[in-house]
């Protein structure tokens, strides 16, 4: 039976933990709001970009760009695994790793070699000892478009140099504050059909294109790649904060329960001590 003092100290500790978890929950909620705004801010750009791509694709069905072309030999697969830098966000990162392993198991056998690049510390730690990691990015707090450009450049350089033949990205998609879905997108070769399908029915634009469609594609195709990565990073960022918020909310609830049961225990122990003292006094008085 723990002493009264011990129980009191435990209650104090749990209360401290509760302060931390509830503060983290609030911080995550604020960050989640910001991350969601970033996703919304990217929409007009996405619409414009896909509409333009769609328009060009319709005009020039034989559109050619090195990033659109599949390589003849399928030798090296690069998997970009996006995770968070920090933990305490439930199964968020574990789900991404599970997804990564699944994609590797499904697509991997077609290739001679599989290499990994990681975004965020958690996936770097996971893959460091398991597979060949070619590049890691960490410390990307507050994702900016420049971060996506860096990753896109890394991939497209390698793809055009023939070092890799296929690239996919794995990340957590933000569905709602309660749900994040781990998912994957094919990055390279970029599929022109997919991009055009994203555009949907665009209005026909009677444009004069200067100098020609190829020059536009040279800008648009890398931009589409950059944007796919940017979107994945943003989704993952929002997902991370949402997951942490949920995790911290349930942690805070747990501390409440714990404090309740400890307080009950404390009161019982106090009662018992009082009763014991009374019994001692009474029996002492009787003995006189």
């Amino acid at each position, binding site marked *: 039976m723990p002493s009264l003092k011990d129980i009191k100290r435990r209650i104090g500790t749990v209360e401290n933990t509760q302060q931390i978890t509830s503060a983290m929950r609030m911080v995550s909620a604020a960050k989640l709001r910001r991350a969601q705004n970033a996703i919304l*801010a990217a929409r*007009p750009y996405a619409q414009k970009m896909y509409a333009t791509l769609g328009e060009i694709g319709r005009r020039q069905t034989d559109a050619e760009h090195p990033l659109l072309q599949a390589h003849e030999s399928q030798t090296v697969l690069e998997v970009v695994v996006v995770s968070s830098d920090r933990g305490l966000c439930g199964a968020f990162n574990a789900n991404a790793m599970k997804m990564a392993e699944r994609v590797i198991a499904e697509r991997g056998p077609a290739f001679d070699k599989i290499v990994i690049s990681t975004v965020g510390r958690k996936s770097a730690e996971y893959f460091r000892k398991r597979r060949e990691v070619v590049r890691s990015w960490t410390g990307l707090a507050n994702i900016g478009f420049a971060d996506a450009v860096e990753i896109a*450049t890394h991939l497209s350089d390698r793809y055009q140099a023939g070092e890799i033949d296929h690239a996919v990205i794995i990340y957590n998609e933000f569905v709602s504050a309660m749900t994040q879905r781990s998912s994957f997108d094919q990055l390279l070769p970029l599929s022109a059909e997919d991009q055009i399908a994203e555009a949907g029915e665009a209005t026909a634009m009677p444009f*004069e*294109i*200067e100098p020609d469609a190829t020059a536009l594609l040279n800008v648009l195709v890398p931009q589409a790649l950059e944007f796919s990565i940017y979107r994945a990073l943003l989704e993952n960022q929002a997902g991370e904060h949402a997951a942490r918020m949920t995790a911290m909310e349930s942690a805070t609830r747990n501390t409440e329960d714990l404090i309740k049961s400890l307080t009950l225990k404390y009161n019982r122990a106090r009662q018992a001590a009082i009763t014991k003292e009374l019994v001692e006094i009474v029996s002492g008085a009787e003995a006189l």
Partner: protein
Amino acid sequence: MPIDLTVVTPEGQAFQGDVESVVLPGIEGDFGVLTGHEVFMTSLRPGEMTVEQGSDRLLAALSKGIAEVHEDHVTVMVGSCEFAHEIDMERAQVAAERARKQLADFRATEEGEEAYQALQEKYSRAIARVSVSEKKKQ
């Protein structure tokens, strides 16, 4: 009649409003758009954008992208658009110097059209940034 100019970047809408004219860094040279411009679409190289709005002249550094002119609506789609007041001149100069060095080193040692282009783009963007913030000072 003013032109309706919209600048979109992945990080959000950078500009939206009625302007008298806009000068953009087209891939084949700078071009100005006034009201009644022909309908066309072109790609942009990293460079400077000049916007005349009322009595104001706004300067911005753009990265590469696409511009579309359509019945007095100009839509510019770029990776980044930084207006002069958003640019930290010292940082821009440091970045330009670094980009210049990288480009020189690359030219001396390595080969590869793609990587070279990427570096060159980076350099042009850095220069545009410096130039925009310098002009602002005057």
